[in-house]
């Protein structure tokens, strides 16, 4: 019902990031409702990307951001579908990122796609091809990234419901998910009771909040959080999760959804739902399939 892909490129000069979008092109048959990618770069500024329901809302959005810091290099443009996008650099206090994130998200007109020192997320309607053409991305210097093509199952086809998902509790953590959780509503109620606020009705957003909540409030690391997720989340799922320093993956106990990974030299690691999506970068290699109930973490 969806496809996921990801990469780690420890030596940015190898510029795997450039071909990353091609990995998603090869998965187009798995989902054509939306495509999204998240990648991480070594930058020195905090960058923001927000989806707006209309271009004219730029001023209002900037008013909110200016409460927290100063804006530079701003740009607003229309996306593939009905949404418009805003991106800029923001000079602000690192600790206030979560607050700014939620303040923008509280408005029904806006949806933050990414906000952070390293992370950058692009997601829009349609295929990887149209995403590449419409949004001017430059992921060549990216150290790692994850991506997703979406075939909407139980929530709407609105692009704010597309992956990758981020939680305002830990804005540099992104997840992509292939599958469907069968206890989303119970877990959402549990998390809302603990004070977590949800923006969409998409079950994958819950996974982002679940991991982020346990990593921030309970102080556990990504690997422990994935073990917790394997136990508490129910349904069929393959999750690909990224933070500025790690990429992790977990596969459900029945092993229904595929997840392949391939390590080349000491430098490059590739992930994908199908062998075919690895071919733009390495062809004809043996990619290992993750074990059912398996969890693996890589450091970047």
């Amino acid at each position: 019902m969806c496809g996921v892909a990801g990469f780690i490129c420890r030596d940015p000069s190898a510029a795997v990031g450039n071909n990353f979008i091609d990995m998603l092109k090869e998965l187009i048959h798995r989902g054509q409702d939306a495509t999204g990618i998240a990648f991480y770069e070594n930058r020195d500024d905090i960058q923001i990307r927000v989806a707006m329901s209309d271009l004219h809302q730029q001023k209002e959005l900037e008013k909110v951001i200016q409460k927290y810091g100063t804006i530079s290099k701003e740009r607003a443009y229309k996306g593939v579908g009905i949404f418009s996008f805003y991106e800029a650099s923001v000079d602000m206090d690192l600790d206030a990122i979560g607050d700014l994130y939620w303040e923008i998200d509280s408005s029904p007109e806006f949806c933050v796609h990414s906000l952070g020192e390293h992370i950058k997320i692009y997601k829009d309607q349609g295929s990887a091809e149209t995403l590449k053409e419409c949004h001017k991305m430059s992921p060549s210097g990216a150290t790692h990234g994850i991506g997703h093509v979406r075939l909407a199952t139980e929530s709407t086809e609105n692009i704010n419901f597309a992956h990758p998902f981020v939680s305002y509790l830990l804005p540099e953590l992104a997840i992509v998910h292939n599958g469907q959780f069968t206890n989303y509503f119970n877990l959402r109620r549990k998390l809302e009771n603990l004070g977590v606020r949800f923006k969409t009705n998409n079950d994958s957003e819950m996974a982002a909040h679940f991991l982020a909540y346990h990593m921030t409030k309970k102080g556990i690391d990504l690997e422990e959080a994935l073990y917790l997720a394997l136990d508490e989340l129910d349904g069929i799922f393959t999750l690909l999760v990224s933070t500025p320093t790690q990429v992790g993956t977990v596969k459900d106990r029945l092993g229904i959804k595929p997840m392949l990974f391939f390590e080349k030299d000491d430098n490059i690691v590739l992930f994908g739902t199908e062998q075919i999506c690895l071919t733009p970068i390495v062809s004809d290699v043996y990619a290992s399939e993750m074990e059912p109930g398996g969890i693996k973490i890589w450091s970047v």
Partner: protein
Amino acid sequence: MSKIDKIPKVKDIQRGVWNNETIAEIKYKAEVGKHRIRGCGTPRKFPNFDDLLILPAQLTRMPVDTYREDCKTQTVLGARYAKEPLVIETPVMISGMSYGALSKEAKTALAKATDIVGTSINNGEGGLLPEERDNSYKQVVQITPSRMGFSLRNIEAADAIEIIIGIGAKPGLSGHLMGCKISEEVAKFRQLPPGIDLHSHPRHGDIFGADDLCIKIEELRDITDNRIPIFLKIAAGRVWEDVKIAAKAGVDGIVIDGSEGGTGAAPVIAANNLGIPSLPALVQAVKSLEDMGVKDEMSVILSGGIKDGADLAKALALGADAVALGTGVMVAMGCVVCLKCHEGKCAFGIGTQDPELRKRLDIDLAAQRVANYIQAITIEATILAKAAGKSKLCNLEREDIRSLTLEACAMTGIPLVGTNFTFGDKFGFC
């Protein structure tokens, strides 16, 4: 031949409420001058879990293989404050039925069944039989208003405590045990004169109100060093407010007993007209706990009319953590629900103290039958849960349920089948 001979005779039978049952009741009252007492609880039909259906996984979700993949049933209750929560292998428990209402053989058989299947039994009002305590896997000890057969020794033997405020079959009333069932042995156990018609206390002598309850619970926690869970059993009445008080009083879990619940003996008028059914009571209790933000801490146990795995699955989906069975396990042992428990002449040796009748109950066979029944309904519930894509019974959710009738839709806030329609606020997200 005249026209009159050709007219067929029509037999008129009943007129509205003046049916045979009403007529018999009136004749009884005309003879005796007071209310009638009868065993087993109300024969009325209420809206129940049969009015709900479960949505299976098809394309958006995948089902779990019924026979070859697992669905976990282990249940943990009372983890709110207790150091040692009650851990049982299935969410089906055996509810409190007293020694006195039931024979010693029946109580022993039920206790043995819990050991086979890995669940708990509740001793009920009549004291803690050594045979029950020695054979059960987990023992829940009831603190009833009458405190018959109750002492510190009971608390020491307990894996969980249940303070009883009322039962669904006769809420606001007390325990009733007819003289014919107060044999020498029962009388000794309960410290009563033999042969007396027992109407025990309806209220606790040491808990007059919610404020006292808070302190009482602290006392119990002091005695047990907060080791075991303390549950509170209420009959379903003013559920919203009662549940809030229970939560504020600091219990680890609440047992809701709906009006379908059974009993050894109760006034017919009370059984038929007091209290609300299990289904709406459960939903109201869950809503009340969520309103206070304590739903994830407090355990909810539902009893009253639970008969099969579908009731279990739907109760879990609506927010219960476990269910307790009474009449169901009696039927598994041999009961045919003749509604004559109060006469003490149970032909199966279950609801009697007559030594000859009691011999008819083969303890080990009865224990195996009850264990089989509990195992079977647990399996039934897992079949439904797996079809909905769950690998743990506790992962069933209210969004997996739809209402078949308008009453069920109105009572539960679960949308009507094939629509998005509810009356007013939805209980779940969809």
